[in-house]
């Protein structure tokens, strides 16, 4: 039922992107989002696409692997696309193509749909480069380090980060446990494979209860083990692994600065996304 411990989608390799500091990668991701949303026209999005392809190349992750992440939200892209296509309510310069009941399809709504779908696609691709090249543990470390300033306003950053890493650590353990319980229930004649969605969901109840009970017991044990190893919160604690910024992160920063500068220039030079219609339609 549940497979091996391939949680998250980390793709192990030793590339430039893999070796970037996780903190830098998280900040770059934000910069990338800014670039995607800053781009006002298709030339901007094309520039982001080129940048994305370059990043995929540098990460040595097969392109198909990155593309696979889009598959999961393909439905969302199509759904929002259709909504945009049929219900775009902005100002129209050209005659609508179809007007029926509350539905309007116009040149503008087509442009809008393509533009937004493209944007969504770029965002998903970019995010998956981050998760493909960074282990969940490194991501947690990075988030902890970035959120550290919040400690001054009494946010328990260390505790939250520890909870996240313990959760990650227990995923394989709980998957094993689930498989064991499922096998035990099957041996007693439980049926997980037939019936409709509702029936199958109901069949999972005898799996979930033992799983929760056992997870609570594990939590109890772990608490004892942590206390026995002198855990007492973040007070007086040191950290073994230190994140260090390298020349790679500096180079990455330059790339992203160039990307955003380029987008701004393209925005000024080519104007908004609908300007492309003038080119096709004349006028």
């Amino acid at each position, binding site marked *: 039922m549940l497979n091996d*411990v391939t949680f998250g989608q980390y793709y192990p390799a030793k590339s430039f992107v893999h070796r970037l500091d996780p903190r830098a990668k998280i900040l770059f991701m934000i910069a990338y989002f800014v670039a995607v949303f800053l781009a006002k026209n298709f030339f901007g999005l094309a520039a982001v696409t080129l940048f994305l392809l370059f990043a995929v190349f540098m990460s040595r992750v097969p392109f198909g692997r990155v593309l696979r992440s889009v598959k999961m939200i393909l439905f969302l892209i199509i759904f929002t696309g259709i909504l945009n296509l049929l219900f775009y309510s902005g100002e129209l310069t050209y005659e609508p193509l179809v007007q029926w009941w509350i539905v309007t399809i116009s040149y503008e709504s087509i442009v809008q749909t393509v533009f937004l779908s493209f944007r969504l696609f770029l965002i998903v691709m970019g995010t998956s480069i981050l998760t493909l090249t960074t282990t*969940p*543990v490194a991501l947690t470390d990075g988030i902890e380090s970035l959120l550290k300033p919040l400690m001054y306003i009494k946010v328990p950053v260390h505790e939250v980060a*520890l909870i996240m*890493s*313990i959760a*990650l*650590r227990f995923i*394989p*353990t709980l998957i*094993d446990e689930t498989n064991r319980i499922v096998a035990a229930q099957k041996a007693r004649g439980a049926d997980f494979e037939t019936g409709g969605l509702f029936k199958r969901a109901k069949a999972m109840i005898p799996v979930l209860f033992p799983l929760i009970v056992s997870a609570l017991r*594990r939590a109890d*044990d*772990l608490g*004892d*083990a*942590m*206390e*026995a*190893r*002198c*855990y*007492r919160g973040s007070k*007086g*604690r*040191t*950290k*073994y*692994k*230190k994140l260090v910024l390298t020349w790679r992160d500096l180079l990455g920063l330059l790339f992203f600065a160039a990307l955003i500068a380029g987008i701004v220039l393209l925005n000024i030079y080519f104007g908004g996304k609908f300007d492309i219609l003038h080119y096709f339609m004349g006028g």
Partner: protein
Amino acid sequence: MEAVRFEHVKYSYREDESEYAVNDVSLSVEEGEFVAILGRNGSGKSTLAKLINALLTPTSGKVSVFGLDTSDEKQTFAIRKSAGMVFQNPDNQAVASIVEDDVAFGPENIGVPREEIGKRIDFALNAVGMQDFRNAMPSRLSGGQKQRIAIAGVIAILPKIMILDESTAMLDPQGRREVMAVVKKLNREQGMTVILITHFMEEALQAERAIVMHRGEVVMDGTPEHIFSHSDALETYNLTLPRAAYICKKLQAAGMPIGEAFTAEELAEEICKSLQKG
């Protein structure tokens, strides 16, 4: 020097103290000793273990570790630094997804500087023979290997006492042997005080001293050989002899002229001797 001292210790999990898990126990363990604590389920042996490093504090009486009173909350941290504990379930002790991060957890908690932590990880993983697994994921290791990592996590704190609370109970024979070999080595080479809680009689034979618990009380205390030569008493506490000792006793009863033996090797030797004579 005295490592652990129990003075008339009682402990009850119940509010009304209608039943004691540990009932009026007094004992002392010297530094460097290797003590096995035996007893069937519910005899109070695990409670005894948790009383040592202040995971539990006595309902009445006093437990002290190197002179520090476990009931004094200000001492808890110092006590846990000197008395490390390994638990039963190999899956429920690791906090991190990577071995070295997990071993680092204890030293981080007690505020060891970064460079020093690296050295301690080397030292601890070497001590348990897991130096090649520094970057492994605990979830991919065998039970015995996981327990060795848990032991390394304790060693990295550099405690003087190591308490093993049925740490071999969930392991296969191979894993059990691995863990016992590590524990014996720690005791012999580093003078670590070991308190081994177990229901495997064979493991008790490796200790210098064995304590039998029954219904919360210490009922026998002596060398393993001394304890296993009182098989009738053991029977009343629902404990059995180690297999070799049991066979030896049966052979003696059947009229074979052999001396006392507790391990398979000793038994083999005794049988050979008697065959040569005959």
